[in-house]
């Protein structure tokens, strides 16, 4: 049984190939944080794999995740906070969705837009 779904030397978010992630490189200080972060293309590839293995929802999650690689950690945490109950008005959520869409994060935007509508109907907005 083979451990990997493919033999590609996938690059980190920084573009550096995984094979260059060595102890020596870490020791010499030449690696940065983005050298340990997953690349969106990799997540899109894994989404296809999930799709082929009868889990389109996992695939959708991975595609959303691919978009979110473009957000820094603080922004990810802030968006999560915004989606928690009673944090934002429906309008604020709708605007948030629009701004995400503008930046090309269309799947994330769709999720937030859907939340805006449901939160308004179910009293989960601020």
């Amino acid at each position, binding site marked *: *049984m*083979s*451990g*990997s*779904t493919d033999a590609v030397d*996938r*690059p*980190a978010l920084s573009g550096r190939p*995984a094979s260059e*992630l*060595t*102890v020596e490189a*870490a*020791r010499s*200080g030449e*690696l940065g*944080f983005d*050298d*340990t*972060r*997953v*690349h969106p293309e*990799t*997540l899109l*590839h*894994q989404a296809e*794999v*999930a799709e082929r*293995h*009868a*889990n*389109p*929802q*996992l695939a*959708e*999650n*991975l595609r*959303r*995740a*691919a978009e*979110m*690689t473009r*957000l820094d*950690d603080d922004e*990810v*945490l802030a968006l*999560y*906070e915004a*989606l*928690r*109950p009673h944090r934002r008005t429906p309008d604020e959520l709708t605007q948030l969705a629009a701004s995400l869409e503008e930046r090309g994060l269309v799947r*994330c935007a769709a*999720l*937030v837009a*859907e*939340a805006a509508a*449901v*939160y308004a109907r*179910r009293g*989960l907005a601020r």
Partner: protein
Amino acid sequence: MSAERVGRLRFMDAQRVNLDGFATEDVELGLVAFASPFDPEPGLEVEGGRVVVLDGVPEADFDALDEFIARHGIDLEVAAEAMGLTDLALARLVVDPSVPRAEVVRLAAGTTPAKLARVLALLRPAELVLAMTKLRARRTPSNQAHVTNRLDDPLLLAADAAMAAAYGFREIETTVPVLADAPSNALACLIGSAAGAPGVLIQCSVEEALELQLGMRGLTSYAETISLYGTEQVFVDGDDTPWSKAFLTSAYASRGMKMRVSSGGGAEALMAGAERKSMFYLEARCVALARAIGAQGVQNGGIDAASVAGSVPRGVRSLMAENVMVMARNLESCSGNDALMSESDMRRTSRTLPIVLAGSDFAFSGFGFIQRYDNMFGPSNFNAEDLDDYLIMQRDWGIDGGLSTVDDDRVASVRRQGAEACRAVYRHLGLADFTDQQVERAVDAAGSKDLGETDTLAVLSAARAISDTGLGVLDVVAALAETGFGEEAERVLALARARLSGDYLQTAAIFDESMGVLSLVTDPNDYAGPGTGYEPGPERQLRIDAVRQARSVEDRRAEQAGQASDLLAPLGPAEPGQDPRDVVIGVSPAVGRQIFVTLSGQPVLDVLAELLAGLEEEGCTGRVVRFNDTVDLGRIGLAAARLSGSGIGIGLQGKGTALIHRRDLPPLANLELYSTAPVVTPALYRLLGANAGRHAKGATPDPARNPYTDEAIEARYHTTVIALVALERRCVDPGLGPEELSLEGVR
């Protein structure tokens, strides 16, 4: 008039199972396992590709959970087919080994929560075992450990994580009694696990946002305490919605981290929010939601509320059915068993065993690798106290519960390696300085109570430094390498590198010890009946079988040889006695050759001394003769009697079984027999000698009673008996007549 309860009832009351709480079913409170009259009828109506009625609720009335499940969780292409099958027909497909897992998964994707709950409620216990065997995602079963301690002591965490990794746990989950210590605990477990084995995933279970931060920095590599609940009210009380959880799920994936969600029957009842629904139906909503938000797996099976489910009829069964439901929805199951659900050892074993027999992606969502008192999640259903039991249960049933025995030297060396590596990194990064004595104590400790005085403020300040400096996985790798822990550095870096390939984001992914990914994708479960599916390979089976308690005949021979004595030397052929007070003590062939200590631990020489002293008390003379042609005690005793001047003989096997015989009796008859050799005391041997003397004189013996014990004496000694009898057999020499043995040095 109220009579006092009879003694038998008072006795029953005192048994440990009666410390557990048992509830009568109460629908109003949600205290019902499988079917509440208020659970909805399963149903699905679709118009123009849109769900308009879900389990009896029209879309205008959808709550947040209905809405998310209806929009994202149901495969509408198979829904009509799946919902059209009767509950029984679907249940049979779930169990039937000739129906492939993929077909069950395909159909389950089209079912509503209420439908799948109805279907799986039909499975009886043995059918649940079969369904789990077939439906779990990953072919190779695995296990997860809890590693925590009351003090958040990093050296002890590292030593325990190292040992857990060496035993085979592929995930380690830690948490904190003091929230601010979390970064230090994550780091200590990461370093420790790397000292034990490659590829162990680390989790630090804390508040959602902090947990995500630790993961983003690479100090942890997965998360599982992203809680889902089965009613909108309880969900929102948990300060989340299905959309915030869906976002969080993607957030983890966006940083290359594995994650699963957490739910479990009884949680809503515990929070007074079950809305008169059964635990299993509410859990069915959680599992449907888990799939809908795109999580790769679910930790369920009661979890924190396992004892709530366990308190009602069929509750324990429902816990296992929850795990099967996760598998049917094509998700990884991390199968609970992580909360001590009973004070009774039998009951908690009964709750866990079927899952271990069937094999799960993770049999425990936290086997407590530390002692109960050190488990900061609360005691798990199995803990450090039960580790040997678990290893032996694997061996008993020939199954792989994910663990195998580690030899004593390696336990010591990995604990030391973990603690030393942890100290080195903390010192190198300026987090804390630990003394040699602290390392020694952590290596040796069976729990945090063995650590003596520790400086908990040092942990807190280390944790703060980790947070403030933004320390990440690359700093840890560099520190390990700089301080001479090159192998650990490689292993930690390998986990960071694995994030780049994303393969461990797939369902049920773990790493094997060569950093190969085992998942639904790379290692799919192919069970289709006997002879298929996972079976430990020969090498793996040997490791499971080789528990450290097992002994061979050769081991027993060596143990006996360690107690060898050159007394009892043969003097020459034994002659018939003429003196009417002569009593022969016949011993078995291995006595004085290979067997020197009886089952009770008394040297054979001491036993002979007692027998001789007893004879002497009655004015008789004993001699010791070894009979070399048989291992049968009756025949030895009879032969001894026939050689005695008195016609009375004593037979003694090396293991300590003894009897009195008379020359005119058939071999299998005897006058007195001590059959329970392990518990025969010196005083009883002396009494046997005295009674033999009384028989010889024609006086009345004082009957000896076999000592009684309620211990599992057969379990304890039968294997030794078999080995000692084998040693006796090796010494049998049919050509060698009875030999008189020297008594010099015996008294």
